[in-house]
């Protein structure tokens, strides 16, 4: 039996398999994850991955070619595409990446069966709509999603649990592991506890945007500014062709990666800009300190998130045992220095398999059929200031096991609404409000026993808590969803 996991990333995507003994990542010929680039050429099936990325420079400006990058970010923004006049939903475009990962694995890793079902990783803040879009994309490619798991959490699983011979040793350990996952589109930071054979998320923080793709934009602006100053070209009315802009983006991305390894990098683009029949080429050197000054604020913001995580978990930096750096943006030396300053040199771990560890963790979860459990109980605040626990910690986050219908009576209908206050708590500390639903009820002074709210709580197949609540006034219930639940797994 083999378990499959897929890390569908903004910049790169990769699938992995686990057979109970070893993990195999389905990387490309260069031993790298597949770039999440899709190259459409008319009606034929698009080309995906390294081949598409390598052709951007040559074909971006040629009619009949369309390249789509960072489709995962578009799913976050819930945008739609038009490809050669035909409208396409983002999930239809994203399904090309899933199809490619599946076909590439079948072609090049022949000793594995086809990927028919897999555990798929998602950023912490992917809501129900975004998860549904990913589910549709995977299903369109013929992959059934066993469950979703948060990317940083999957990374810890991949890092710690690939070798089951180590489990007995891990069972004795109690550790706090901080996962700092900064990729092209999202920053996800999670504090994971290892305790008595369980791994669970304690505190999470993160943000969309202001990641690798945003750094590319900053670098583009810097390059254009410098170009204008050098050539004495006014910024007023300055415009470069969309095709050239796309090539610049491509070049800038390479330079950014280069600057994590070297002190200097250069960008060269012929016929970069033309004005009054005069054509200008772009030759620009960028050094690491110039790049670092551009992104300094974002690095500081990211470290603020780290402080927030520690504060929420009521831990000091010294109480963190390991810090895992995942994702391309985490390789920036300025960030690594900041991490060293906060946590010390020995605790910060740059994984050799940082590009694939998320998919590997998902494959391990898939192999053992682990279903995440709820770490923090879901409670409802009541009128007497007590709390009713809808789902206790340890509840398996599965549609069949986590559903409940609760009828509430309203202790005061004068405001015309019943207030359903959903909270969580950890280690019996104070309750944190997750969501408040105001359910319309009748304001009329009446026999009190008439005002009821019927609330339905259920975990859906996208591992999201859905709540619907209906009062006496409107026929339609009020809905909400909570998608940033903390997950846990018991491995031993």
């Amino acid at each position, binding site marked *: 039996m083999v378990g499959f996991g897929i890390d569908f990333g903004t910049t790169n995507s990769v699938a992995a398999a686990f057979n109970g003994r070893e993990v195999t990542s389905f990387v490309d010929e260069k031993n790298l994850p597949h770039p999440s680039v899709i190259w459409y050429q008319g009606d034929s099936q698009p080309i995906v991955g390294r081949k598409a990325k390598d052709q951007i420079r040559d074909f971006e400006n040629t009619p009949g070619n369309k390249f789509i990058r960072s489709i995962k970010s578009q799913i976050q923004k819930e945008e739609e595409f038009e490809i050669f006049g035909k409208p396409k939903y983002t999930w239809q475009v994203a399904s090309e990446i899933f199809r490619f990962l599946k076909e590439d694995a079948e072609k090049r890793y022949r000793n594995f069966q086809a990927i028919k079902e897999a555990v798929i990783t998602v950023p912490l803040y992917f809501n129900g709509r975004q998860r549904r879009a990913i589910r549709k994309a995977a299903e369109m490619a013929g992959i059934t999603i066993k469950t979703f798991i948060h990317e940083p959490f999957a990374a810890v699983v991949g890092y710690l649990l690939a070798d089951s011979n180590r489990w007995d040793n891990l069972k004795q350990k109690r550790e706090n592991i901080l996962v700092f996952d900064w990729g092209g589109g999202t920053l996800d930071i999670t504090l994971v506890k290892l305790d008595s054979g369980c791994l669970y998320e304690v505190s999470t923080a993160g943000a969309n945007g202001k990641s690798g793709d945003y750094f590319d934009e900053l670098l583009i602006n810097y390059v254009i500014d410098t170009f204008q100053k050098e050539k004495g070209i006014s910024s007023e009315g300055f415009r470069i062709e969309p095709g050239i802009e796309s090539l610049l983006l491509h070049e800038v991305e390479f330079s950014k990666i280069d600057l994590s390894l070297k002190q200097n990098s250069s960008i060269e683009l012929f016929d970069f800009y033309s004005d009054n029949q005069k054509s200008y080429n772009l030759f620009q050197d960028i050094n690491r300190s110039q790049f670092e000054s551009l992104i300094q604020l974002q690095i500081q913001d990211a470290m603020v998130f780290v402080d927030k995580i520690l504060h929420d978990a009521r831990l000091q930096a010294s109480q963190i045992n390991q810090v895992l750096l995942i994702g391309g943006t985490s390789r920036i030396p300025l960030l690594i220095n900041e991490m060293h300053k906060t946590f010390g040199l020995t605790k910060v771990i740059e994984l050799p398999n940082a590009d694939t560890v998320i998919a590997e963790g998902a494959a391990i979860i898939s192999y053992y059929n682990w279903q995440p459990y709820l770490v923090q109980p879901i409670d409802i*605040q009541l009128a007497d200031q007590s709390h009713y626990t809808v789902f206790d910690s340890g509840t398996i986050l599965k549609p069949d096991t986590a559903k409940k219908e609760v009828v509430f009576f309203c202790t005061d209908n004068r405001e015309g609404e*019943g*207030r359903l206050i959903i909270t969580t708590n950890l280690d019996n500390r104070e309750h944190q409000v997750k969501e408040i639903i105001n359910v319309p009820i009748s304001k009329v002074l009446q026999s009190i026993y008439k005002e009821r709210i019927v609330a339905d709580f259920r975990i859906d197949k996208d591992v999201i808590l859905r709540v619907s609540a209906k009062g006496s006034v409107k026929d339609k219930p009020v809905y909400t969803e909570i998608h940033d639940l903390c997950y846990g797994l018991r491995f031993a």
Partner: protein
Amino acid sequence: MKKSNLKLKSNLMVESIDGVEVKNAKEQIRYFPGDFAALIEPNRMKEVRIREKYFTSQQIIEYQQTIVCYTCKKPCAGTCQRRS
């Protein structure tokens, strides 16, 4: 508009879970704010002996705070006389 903290107070109590009634479901009136309970059950609240049996001490205090005082014509809960 700035929301009051009071908005965060729940006005719900559990009556049943998956169709099974909870233990205190029949004592709902004891969870009402006192002034509201007095609107719903005015006769029980006015009668001193009954109200002490029927309502909680917290509810009675809440109710008394809403009674308009004969002296100051405000719901002063007796504080006007204490001042004088």
